[in-house]
Structure formats: C-alpha cells, structure tokens
C-alpha cells in the first residue's frame, strides 16, 4: 500500500508486492472513473455511481 497526499487527504493505493517505493518518490496511480464514487461536498450524500 502506498499513501500519497492528494485532494487535501491521505490517499492509499494498492501497490504490487515487489513495488519498491521510497518516501518522497513521485508516483502515479491509475484511478479510472468507473471505480469512483461521488458524494455531495456539503451533506456527504451519495450522488451517482459512475
């Protein structure tokens, strides 16, 4: 599991077992729309499932 700071939060992303990451190293994560959930920013209520 690799954690990055993004969108004002700590965000965890699955890493392959043999992934060697160092703190501070820039990485990218594939986060396609189909795995995303949207919620109302104010109420927190679910908006859609894409």
């Amino acid at each position, binding site marked *: *599991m690799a954690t990055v700071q*993004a969108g004002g939060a700590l965000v*965890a992303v699955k890493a392959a077992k043999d992934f060697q990451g*160092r*703190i501070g190293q820039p990485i990218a*994560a594939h986060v396609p729309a189909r*795995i995303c*959930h949207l919620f*109302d920013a*104010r109420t927190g209520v679910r908006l859609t499932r894409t």
Partner: protein
Amino acid sequence: MADIQLKSLTKRWGAFVGLKPMDLHIGDGEFLVLLGPSGCGKTTTMRMIAGLEDASGGDILIGGKRVNDLEPKDRDIAMVFQSYGLYPTMTVYENIRFPLKVRGIPEAEHHDRVMRAARTVELTEFLDRKPAALSGGQRQRVALARAIVRKPKVFLMDEPLSNLDAKLRVSTRAQIKNLHHELRTTTIYVTHDQIEAMTLADRVVVMSRGEVQQVGTPLEIYDRPANTFVAGFIGSPAMNLMQGTLKGGVFEAEHVRIPGLAGPDGPVTLGFRAEDASIAATGEIAAPIYAMELLGDA
C-alpha cells in the same frame, strides 16, 4: 420464530437524543447486524427491544404483537452480552439449565435440552466445571448455550465476542454463524467491528450518532455506500475520500485529475477504494509517496 418491527422507535434522555426515530423490519429468521462507532446508539436500541429500557416513542412489534408494555421475561427473547453473566457458583450444566428452571419448563425435559445445547456449542466435556475454570471463549459458549437452551423467538447479541482474543473471535464467530444456520432464529447482533458485521450479517444497519445511515446487505453497503460516513467506515482500509471540484465530468483537486465522471458541476467529495486503484507509469493521481505500508495482499 418471529419477525421484528421497529416503528419510529426513539430514545431521549432529557434533551439528549440517544436514538432518532428508527424504522426497521427484521425478517423472520434474519441475521441483522447493528454496526457503528462507540456511542451511536446500538446498545440503547437493543435494550429497548429487550425491554430493559423504555422507549421514549414508537412501537416495537415481535411476531406482529406490540411488546412495548411487556416485561423483558415476557418477550421471549434471549440475550448474550459482552460480559457473560454466568453464575460463578453454578457448574456449566446448571448455568445452561437455569433459564429452563426460571421459566418453569417441565423438569423431565431439562436434561435433554441442556445436553443438546451443550453439544451445539461443543461444551459437553466441561459441564461439571465452574465458569472460573473456563477460558473466555468457553465462557462465551456457555452464555450462547444458555441463550439457545430455551428456543426463544429472538436472539439479541451485544458485542458477544469483544472480550475474546483475535483467534477465538474468529472461531466463535464461525460458531455463531453455524448456529444461526441451524436454528434460523431471528437475531439482532451488535458490533462496532465491521469485519464481524460483514461476515455474519444478512443485512447491516450502519448507525452514527443515534441515526441510521444505511440499511443493506454487506455487499450493497460496501459497493454503494449511501454517504461519506458509511464510505469512510466500511472497508479495511476505508474508502479514500478527496475534496475537489467537478466540472464537465472532470474531477480536479490537488495532484488529481479524473475525467469521465457523471455529476453536477461544483464542489464534490470523490471516493475510491485503495484496492481498486493501482500504481502506474502515468495516472489520474500524481504525487510523491507519503508513506509505504505492507498490508495483507497489497
């Protein structure tokens, strides 16, 4: 066997609301789990159903009959709580038998029923011992046997595994699941452990601050959390949640750009599960590593 209906069930102590109006139908034979953080009103709900606490408003129906005004002993409910509540001076056998005595079940039936209950939870070799000479898991099984010995209409279990170590929790959990499969007794089970909830429940009620957040099967709650509270509470790790802006189907936040979404323009919270995402050469999130963690299969 019986179904349970809660109609606008409410609890207040003075100005403090312990449970906001709760409406729920628990099917005959269903295993329902109340899940939520400490203080969200799980025990309060259970105690009202059991009759140990008066409801401030609303109705409780068991098998179609309103029970609000019935004494606990007349509700035909058996309870298993975190503290086992065993009688220290009685043997395991007498502990299991006790509910039969209290309820005036004919003596002739006692032995068979005690033995059957003891066999169900694999306690037959400990029947002559006192509770002090048992492990935590064995004591919890005595409490279970005592609950099943009189075949109640409903089981209420409030964190029955929380005093057990991790390994015993897993095996006792399996035993409870198997017991329910066999007896098909309508069961309400309280926990703040989401793994317990997800593995045991037919349906889960997620609660927060005295309020129901979502009711659904474990899969529904995991796949379609109704709000950010549920999203942030269910799953290990819980869902990632980020604040950002949606514009023309593109979510943007610091280090993040995700196109192809459907939703209204404006500020939104976007969530995804760590296990659904993967590290790649390029991607929708690009940022320096903050921490690395070895975790199960990831």
